[in-house]
């Protein structure tokens, strides 16, 4: 190493060091990126695609779009959704299957979105409400359909609207026990992790009468 190289090396090094310090000096005055979470709740922006809690949107008449077909339950990979339909008799004497309870377990959900994609009537969606922590495991089990809600009819005469109101009045009485039963069943499923799949498949056979093929077709059209 020649002497001139030695000297020029020192100055080169000094120059690059000062360049580095200039960069950090700029960084010192930049806007800080820290998000102070609990305080910035109001300005917090969560991505639209963020999946946090499964909900069933209800309109102002307390009506939802779920036909209790059970496709979401069938598609759920780990038995997180339990759909319980019930049969009612409409005024003109026809038997009709409506939704009794739609139970979703926050604790076992993997947020894969399969239920939302496959739902033929777009009755359920994931919302942005990410603060789902609770102190009790049983609070993780959500019933998605509201108390006394009914299926949204497709432009029917007022006769059809009347009938569900009668059913809704007795649905407040009977489903209460029904719902408790299902919640306890879901809890059982959770505790018997090994038999979750088996239990579910039996549930599916009991409660769902939709043929599998239509389900697949709907899948494709939806996607």
């Amino acid at each position, binding site marked *: 190493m020649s002497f001139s190289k030695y000297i020029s090396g020192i100055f080169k090094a000094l120059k690059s*060091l000062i360049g580095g310090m200039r960069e950090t000096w700029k960084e*010192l005055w930049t806007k*800080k990126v*820290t998000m102070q979470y609990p305080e910035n709740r109001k300005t917090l922006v969560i991505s639209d695609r963020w999946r946090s809690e499964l909900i069933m949107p209800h309109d102002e008449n307390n009506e939802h779009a779920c036909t209790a077909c059970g496709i979401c339950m069938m598609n759920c990979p780990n038995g997180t959704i339990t759909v319980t339909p019930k049969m009612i008799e409409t005024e003109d004497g026809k038997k009709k299957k409506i939704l009794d309870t739609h139970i979703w377990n926050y604790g076992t959900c993997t947020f894969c979105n399969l239920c939302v994609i496959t739902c033929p009537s777009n009755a359920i969606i994931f919302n942005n409400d990410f603060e789902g922590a609770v102190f009790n495991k049983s609070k993780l089990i959500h019933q998605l359909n509201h108390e006394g809600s009914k299926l949204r009819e497709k432009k029917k005469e007022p006769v059809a609207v009347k009938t569900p109101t009668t059913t809704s009045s007795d649905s407040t009485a009977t489903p209460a026990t029904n719902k408790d039963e299902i919640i306890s069943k879901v809890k059982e499923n959770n505790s018997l992790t090994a038999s979750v799949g088996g239990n579910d498949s039996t549930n599916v056979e009991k409660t769902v009468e939709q043929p599998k093929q239509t389900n697949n077709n709907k899948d494709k059209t939806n996607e």
Partner: protein
Amino acid sequence: MLLLNYSQPLELSGIIESVDTFLRTNMSPGWATFVEGVIVCVAILALYCIIALALIYIERKITAFFQARLGPNRLGPYGVIQSIADMVKILIKEIIHINRSDKFLFYAAPFFVIVSSFLAFGVIPFGIDLQAIDFNIGVFFYTAASSIGIIGVLLAGWSSNNKYSMLGAMRSGAQFVSYELSAGFALMTIVVLSGTMQFSELVEGQRYCWNLFNGHISSIIAFIIFMISGHAETNRGPFDLPEAESELTAGYHTEYSGLTFGFFYLAEYLNMFIYCSIATTVFLGGWMPIQIPGLDALNEVMWYIPSYVWFFGKTGLLIFLSLWVRWSFPRLRIDHLLNLEWKYLLPINLVNLLVMVVIVLTDTSLAGLFPSLLATN
């Protein structure tokens, strides 16, 4: 002294003097000296801890700002109580006993480190009359006292019965011994310039012209070398390879916990402060306010700001510089580190010392060139 020409309303000399006369009127001279000694000890210990806590908080904040974060902000306003909480945590932690370690050396090591730090801390002139003891060889005493710390580090690494600790200690030893050399030479350059090793005389000599400017080119080189070797000696900045987290977990203090670790931690932070304060005293005029000969009005205003504020202000500036450097540069490799010292800093330093001798002999320092403007007496 010349200083008394100016009014200094906020200085602490009055309080110190009254305490002294009170003790001496009420006690025999021997007891009065003893009690004063105890008071000074307690004051220094308290100051040591307070400065350490403040430094840890300031360092964490500034570090965060350099990384576009906010730093501690939960405990108290702007997180000011954070370091006190950390201290309490470290005090109540268990001191873990390491199997097959050298018990005596293991527990003695932190004391070497902290005692050397205390000794060096004791000679710093914080302001007018705010110096525990004013040796006539103050600079030399500082160099000697701060070198004891490395024994503690080596003992810690050796007695821990841990490869990483051992490697860290060896690196630290190599680094410290090397850079002590250039730090000593840089100080020697200034001692040549000012002709004294006593801190009070060093400060007084820089009344109108800081040593940093007085020896112009030679002083500036000495200052840069002193700051670089300071970083290296305190295991900070780009020279933190003795405790390189990613390679050696924590280096020589890997096996320490609780208070024993706290000692190392405290000493590391305080060594940075001590280093910066020595640099302040030797190069930047210590506690002396900025004085311009002839402008008496300005000088008087400057004296209204108490000397300890000047001292901590200048030291704070240097600490900020040290943090700035720390968060700018990547860590050096051990061979690069030693290259830097033995192939660059040391030869430059030796030449620089000679240049300074020539400057002093030919009387071409700034004070020598413009005696009417800058000479002290």
